[in-house]
């Protein structure tokens, strides 16, 4: 079972290499024969683009093809898959390594063995008790790694290395509990308690402690998934929104926009670009999530348990809505500039609400209970893509609250798209420097 993740990773790598080889072959084949544009590679996108979506579809199809063809996209995709694989596999490997321990016991007894097993169970550890004939042999076993710890009867606990005070692993907890219990056992004997009395004292339960304020609940599976979800949304949005801005700016800077707008309407060009890049973003996010879920199931990660799939679905919905909302704004911003050095100054103010929603939601998840601020931000379209999946992860959003937030976001997106299209139309043909918004309010320049 441990080899399964490696097999999956190897399979994914093999598929990527295969795809790259096929593409290379097609490329060299087309170079040596007829000089016609990329034949089969993009047939699928070509089939749907014109027939289903007209000129907007053709523009979107070009965006999809060019993004998929780009080296940056491939590199980023491989890195993201690697990060996801690491995030899913590493915690499970760590957990597994710590869950088993071999305990060598010199002068063992049935009662002692049973007590050791019970303590192991409460520490979250599975132990195998090994009866050792003498202490010397037990020490050798400890030294060679055959044993994880050794008990010299009830007198002493032996370890290979000293325990760190900060070590909270199940094995460390187990060692401490065994040490405490055996110490108490000797104290009861010195106090002259019978075995029955000793058992009563040993079985003492702590009194319940109640507080007026509710305590911090332990993080559940779906909350962890929500955390991963908002990180995914943030990473994907940042990447693709910047591409949208740069894409519009590239068309303006290279003046190709003049050729395009001689044929298609500005709204078609803008919508095609937004839709094309958005489709690639969604496909990449879905592929990452599917990969994470399949890998998680294979390696026994808790990503796929409980309500986690619902949280994943909510994260994907909000990825689409978030991209839909912000992409128009970023595209309009891209039409205001035409130099690479203007990207930062154009993107920074737009990214602030995005960053705010992300950070507040992250704090909400890590604190174990979403604040009132998160609950408010879940209904504001600029921050809802992070805040609402957080609420879903904590099971603090009903279906109608979720739908209300979605409806508000869609309505605002329509309004934002209308304004963005106007800015785009006015600004994209103005050349010679960065266009200020107040210029668009002045006399026309195109």
């Amino acid at each position, binding site marked *: 079972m441990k080899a399964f993740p490696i097999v999956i990773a190897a399979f994914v790598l093999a598929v990527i290499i295969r795809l790259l080889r096929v593409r290379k072959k097609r490329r060299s084949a087309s170079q040596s024969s007829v000089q*016609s*544009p*990329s034949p089969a590679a993009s047939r699928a996108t070509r089939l749907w683009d*014109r027939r289903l979506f007209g000129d907007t579809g053709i523009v979107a199809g070009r965006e999809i093809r*060019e993004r998929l063809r780009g080296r940056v996209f491939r590199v980023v995709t491989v890195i993201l898959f690697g990060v996801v694989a690491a995030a899913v596999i590493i915690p499970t490997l760590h957990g597994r390594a710590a869950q088993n321990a071999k305990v060598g016991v010199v002068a063992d007894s049935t009662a002692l063995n049973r007590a050791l097993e019970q303590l192991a169970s409460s520490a979250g550890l599975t132990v195998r008790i090994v009866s050792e004939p003498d202490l010397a042999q037990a020490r050798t076993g400890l030294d060679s790694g055959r044993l994880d710890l050794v008990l010299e009867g009830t007198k002493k606990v032996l370890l290979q290395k000293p325990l760190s005070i900060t070590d909270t692993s199940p094995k460390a907890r187990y060692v401490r509990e065994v040490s405490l219990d055996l110490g108490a056992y000797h104290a009861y004997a010195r106090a002259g308690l019978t075995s029955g009395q000793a058992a009563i004292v040993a079985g003492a339960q702590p009194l319940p402690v109640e507080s007026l304020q509710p305590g911090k609940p332990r993080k559940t599976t779906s909350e962890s998934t929500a955390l991963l979800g908002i990180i995914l949304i943030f990473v994907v949005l940042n990447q693709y929104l910047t591409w949208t801005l740069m894409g519009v700016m*590239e068309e303006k800077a290279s003046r190709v926009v003049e*050729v395009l707008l001689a*044929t298609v309407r500005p709204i078609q060009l803008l919508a095609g670009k937004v839709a094309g890049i958005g489709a690639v973003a969604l496909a990449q996010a879905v592929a990452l999530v599917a990969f994470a879920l399949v890998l998680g199931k294979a390696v026994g990660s808790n990503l796929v348990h409980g309500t986690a799939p619902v949280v994943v679905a909510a994260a994907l919905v909000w990825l689409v809505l978030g991209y839909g909302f912000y992409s128009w704004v970023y595209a309009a911003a891209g039409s205001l500039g035409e130099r690479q050095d203007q990207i930062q100054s154009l993107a920074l103010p737009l990214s602030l609400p995005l960053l705010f929603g992300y950070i507040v939601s992250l704090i909400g998840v890590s604190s174990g209970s979403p604040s009132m601020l998160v609950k408010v931000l879940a209904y504001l379209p600029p921050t809802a893509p992070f805040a609402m999946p957080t609420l879903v992860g904590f099971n603090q959003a009903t279906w109608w609250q979720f739908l209300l937030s979605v409806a508000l976001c869609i309505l605002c997106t329509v309004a934002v798209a209308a304004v963005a299209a106007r800015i785009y139309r006015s600004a994209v043909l103005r050349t010679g420097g960065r266009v200020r918004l107040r210029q668009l309010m002045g006399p026309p320049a195109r």
Partner: protein
Amino acid sequence: MSSSLEVDSLTRQFGAVTALDGLSFSVPSGEVVGFLGPNGAGKTTTMRAIFGLTDLDAGSVRWNGTPVGAAERRRFGYMPEERGLYPNMLVADELDYLGRLHGMRSAEAASATARWLERLEVADRARDKVEALSHGNQQRVQLAAALVHDPDVLVLDEPLAGLDPAGVDVIGQVLVEQARAGRCVLFSSHQLDLVEDLCESVAIIDHGRLVASGTVDELATQGARRLAIRVEGDRRAAWAGALPGVTVSEVQGGEVRLILDDSVESDTVLDAARTAGRVTKFGFERRRLSEVFREAVGR
């Protein structure tokens, strides 16, 4: 009925600047029409107006008598002054994309792309990125982008600028072929000798207004008579400046070009030339297009 592109009373104001001031002219099919004017005369604004890329304060653009809209523009081909192609896209993919935006099916666009790249002698660069091409080859690809959908109207802003003689020849031949095939071809240029060679007619504008138009032959032969005279050993032609009713148009390479008023007899001019030396050339000439242009724009 032959078709034509008509530009009717175009008016466009940018703040205090009048870019177009009631400009009207037409481009008949089957002709290459040169669109001339000094820098800032309004040529580019006119071409952008044809494609709806600038808003008009007044006037209209018509194709076969119908106001030009999105459907008509699909049948137009445009080459802007500042070249416009995706630098990172493969040449063939770029042309294919533009063909499809003009309504072609994928297979048609691919076939037209291959055909035009072949015709413009850049077929071997089909799988290269546009940015990897030389200026001249990018210019050819840009023209292919305007031609890929076999448009009825071709509007080209400075298509010959910066080309070597071979590039000028190829693009010039293509423009003439397109006109012979019944298309309207309008192109702007400051290379007046080339325009004179390629065009049947020209429209000259200045300050957003039409200042001269007609066939090259009409413009070259109309107006005052012109004499070209060469006097052996005389490179300054000082004798000509003293003749009443005679204006010296140009003195170059030992040859003087004169413009005669109606009252002046050519014999009078010949006699004056003989006083300066042996006359080795004496004859009436057409106006060059550069002379027509200078007279029309007054500078």
